[in-house]
């Protein structure tokens, strides 16, 4: 054992007080994120509680009512939720198969050169602000859908156009997460499949994809969470009023779109409109947080399998 340092030991240093200060500051920086979360939870719950305490609001009606008309005192969140779910479903219908196909291509088929050109393009797509996608939905996708299905079938503001463009928006995210998952599959598995005479497709679909399935599932869940939280595309292209409908060619309003429209006007504090936004915000926060936690659980399991 090394003897305890004494004052005679030249290597002994006095503890530097600065180090403690720095360490304290760095810890504060790290802990700041906890404050953010607490702030979000506290503020959303506080205002949401005020909303639910309001005599005009009934908790059961909030979750089952099919009308959201604050002026008429009708606070049923379902129209906003169904619109959110429909745009999200359309988005995933586009982004999941396409994203998976691109990821399989990039990880299993593409040459290094092709991969080096394609990945930056996807990064560019991921870096474009969502308001630009919103513009694209309104000025390209909507006229495009209307020319295919007819102007009387497709409204100017509709969920299909918004959903499709959200799908394009989350495509890079799904692709890069899926590609990471596929690339993490050990090479030996592929070589084993080839040795048994499998074609490239069979190797990819029957060996690599099942091996990476938890990573792919995580990508899927994160994609849904992004689509639900997406705001500007739906605010621009989907519509300007809550509408309880399952027809994707009709306009409706999602949870995020509603928050943006109402808060964009002159909103006074402590009104039921103001409080209702926080109730919707809280619901949105809980849904997306739940999805993110699920995806992290899946990823953790995935890591345990392969490391």
């Amino acid at each position, binding site marked *: 054992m090394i003897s305890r340092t004494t004052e005679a030991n030249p*290597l002994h240093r006095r503890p530097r007080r600065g180090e403690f200060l*720095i360490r304290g*500051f760095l810890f504060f920086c*790290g802990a700041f994120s906890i404050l*953010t979360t607490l702030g979000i939870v506290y503020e959303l719950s506080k205002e949401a509680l005020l909303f639910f305490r309001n005599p005009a609001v009934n908790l059961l009606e909030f979750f089952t009512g099919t009308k959201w008309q604050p002026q008429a005192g009708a606070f049923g969140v379902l129209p906003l939720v169904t619109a959110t779910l429909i745009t999200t479903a359309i988005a995933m219908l586009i982004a999941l198969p396409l994203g998976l196909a691109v990821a*399989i291509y990039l990880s299993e088929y593409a040459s290094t050169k092709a991969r080096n050109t394609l990945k930056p393009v996807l990064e560019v797509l991921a870096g474009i602000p969502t*308001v630009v996608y919103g513009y694209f939905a309104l*000025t390209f996708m909507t006229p495009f859908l209307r020319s295919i299905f007819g102007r009387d079938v497709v409204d100017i503001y509709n969920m299909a156009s918004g959903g499709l463009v959200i799908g394009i928006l989350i495509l890079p995210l799904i692709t890069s997460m899926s590609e990471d998952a596929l690339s993490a599959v050990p090479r030996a598995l592929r070589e084993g499949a080839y040795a048994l005479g499998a074609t490239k497709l069979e190797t990819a679909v029957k060996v690599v994809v099942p091996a990476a399935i938890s990573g792919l599932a995580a990508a899927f869940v994160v994609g849904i969470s992004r689509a639900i939280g997406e705001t500007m595309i739906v605010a621009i292209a989907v519509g300007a009023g809550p509408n309880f409908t399952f027809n994707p060619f009709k306009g409706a309003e999602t949870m995020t779109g509603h928050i943006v429209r109402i808060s964009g006007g002159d909103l006074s504090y402590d009104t039921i409109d103001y409080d209702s936004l926080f109730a919707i915000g809280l619901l*949105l926060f809980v849904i997306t*947080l739940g999805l993110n936690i699920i995806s992290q659980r899946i990823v953790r399991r995935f890591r345990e399998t392969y490391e």
Partner: protein
Amino acid sequence: MSTPTGRIRLTPHFESNLPSRNRKASLWQVLFRLSTTIGMIVLALLLYTVVNQAFGLVAIDNKVDPASFAVDGVQIEELDQETLIAVIEENVSKGKFRQLEREQPLAERTWEEVYQVVIDDVVEPKDIVGTWPLVESLTRKEEILAEVEQEHPQATVEFTSWIDPQFVTSPQSSDVLEAGVRTALLGSLLIIAITIVVALPIGIGAAIYLEEYASDNWLNRTIQTNINNLAGVPSIIYGMLGLAIFVRMLEPLTSGAIFGLTDPTTANGRTILSAGLTLAILVLPVLIINVQEAIRAVPNSLREGSYGLGGTQWQTIWHHVLPNAMPGILTGAILSISRAIGETAPLVVIGAATYITFDPDSPFSKFTTLPIQIYQWTSRAQGEYHNIAAAAILVLLMLLLSLNATAILLRNRYSRK
């Protein structure tokens, strides 16, 4: 499969299967390739849509017969000032009239000035009667000219680039031809400056703590999980947080009241400072994760070398870890900052101004930003607003592109060192 003979025996079933399996394989390969191509096509379409709208023909109806404004048979050049003001009020939009009054009350102007307003805004108002996108303008020019000639005989048609130096340097205006993004661009830059000043030290500090100091205990694991979760929270939630905390709770601070600096036009907390702080909180999680990755990439041998020579932990971090992680940190920081520049939803929620024409001059000014300007113009029904929205998108994309180019340049410079 029955007897091991030392060579692979293909069963007849296997052989008969092979062509169809190969066909299937090549079919799917084509499909995978096609999907990738679709991704590329979409990116191209997006750029095409924007560029197509940012240039093109515009028809301006700028001549109305002055005689049609004569009151009781008296020509406008002989009318007195009051009647001229009435003519203006009758013929321009309410917003435009208010704007004129704000510049200088019409009643206080000289007769010549009021007459000039009549000529500029009533007789030659430069009304846009139609705009056409670039491709159409090039391919159908003759038809467009004929169409305009027929419907608006007095209109002039000219080719316009909606994005030009004047567009970048002039403030917002109710007149589409005069409107620009100066106010929005300055707003974006000021807000981002605040975001950088606040988020960068905290973000890098948190990343250093988590990578270098944090031991694996319950508290630190919670912090890490929490940061990962925050990165997935929709941006609009941060807007609501900003509205509740910065705009409402900290109003005396964010409106500048406690410094006695309140902007006379804003008596509330919906200011550049609130917006900057909100975006700082928004980018922090992503920033921390990016910086953590950069720090993690520094080889452990460097740290051990420094410790071996008797360096303290902070000396090791400051002299060895940070310089080596710098290219990665810069890239990560710039990438998360460019995400903040494109953010729209949270700023709408905390209350961006809908119409301001003056430059923001302090952190306590009202604000608008490029994405918000794009959103507002896109939401207008008239086609010409979509043209200037496209021009504003090009300005925004160029800003982001130059930022990313800076990131790459900085990275290359530091890595050479």
